[in-house]
């Protein structure tokens, strides 16, 4: 294993851990809400035993809330499952819009914590043959950089576009790319991932965007 592979492997484990921690935090919140709703149901039963009439609409709202949280948890676990399976194959054909959708779902809590808004372009119906996990890792690092430069309250536009023999992933509307506080980009880690994917990474302050050009892979 060469240094680049070690770097990608270690960075990949860190990326996986970061996403898993965020997902577990989300699940904890879902459990906390279900816990409080169950507690309220107990309180209502306790009061009913002491003669206070039960309001059926109140019970319907509480059961509706529990169902909503179960749907939320199901979505979170579906995202986790898709992410976990992104390591299964090193060369697979994937829909680029689905990759962006998965990235947005995985990043939702980080995006909320930073107070940033994401706008995702319409699906383009393009596929690319690549290693999904490594691509997700690279796109996450681009998004992380984009969030760091724009700051709270700003919008980042995410686009996937077909081009010739490959696709563009674009992170647009990035203000403040040239301030002293902006982190170095692409740094060693992004460059290593780009090399592994045969991707080119462009930082373009004039266009206020970061772009990743990914060409089709012809062999494994």
């Amino acid at each position, binding site marked *: 294993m060469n240094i680049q592979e070690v770097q990608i492997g270690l960075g990949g484990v860190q990326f996986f851990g970061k996403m898993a*921690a965020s997902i*577990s*935090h*989300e699940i*904890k*919140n879902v*459990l*906390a*809400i*279900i*816990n*409080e*709703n169950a*507690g*309220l149901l107990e*309180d209502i039963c306790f*009061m009913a035993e002491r003669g206070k009439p039960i309001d059926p609409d109140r019970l319907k709202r509480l059961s509706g*809330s529990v169902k909503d*949280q179960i749907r939320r948890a199901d979505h979170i676990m579906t995202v986790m499952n898709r992410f976990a399976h992104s390591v299964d194959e090193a060369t697979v054909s994937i829909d680029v819009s689905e990759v962006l959708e998965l990235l947005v779902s995985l990043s939702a809590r980080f995006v*909320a*914590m*930073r*107070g940033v808004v994401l706008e995702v372009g319409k699906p383009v119906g393009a596929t690319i043959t690549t290693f999904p996990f490594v691509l997700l890792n690279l796109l996450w690092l681009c998004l992380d950089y984009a969030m760091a430069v724009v700051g*709270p309250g700003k919008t980042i536009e995410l686009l996937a576009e077909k081009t010739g023999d490959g696709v563009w992933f674009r992170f647009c509307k990035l203000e403040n790319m040239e301030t002293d506080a902006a982190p170095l980009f692409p740094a060693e880690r992004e460059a290593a991932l780009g090399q592994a994917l045969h991707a080119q990474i462009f930082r373009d302050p004039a266009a206020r965007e970061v772009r990743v050009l990914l060409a089709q892979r012809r062999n494994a």
Partner: protein
Amino acid sequence: MQVLLVDDEEELVTALAERLSLRGIEALWATSAEEALRVLETRSFDLAVLDVKIPKIDGLQLKKQMQAMRPGMKFIFVTGHGSDRDFKTGVAEVGADYYLVKPLKIEDLITKMKEVLES
């Protein structure tokens, strides 16, 4: 006892506020740091229960801002756990006595509230 609950999960704070009020504790809630600071401009509380991680600002920073506005106010932090390092850092800063992990047991929360107010 008058308590301000701050967590970006609205369903969590509304249900918790209702459960506390059924136990004789007046609880208001806010789902963002900005909202919490706005509420504090108009009234005071004995205690705030803050989520460690809320959008745009962490709970520890929010505590400092709230404390500057209401110096006598006490604080309890709740967390979905985060990393061990986050937890230890948080505990080191605010003290283990002021930390609870989600999901909360309401009896534990009320016991902790009383302990903190008596401390």
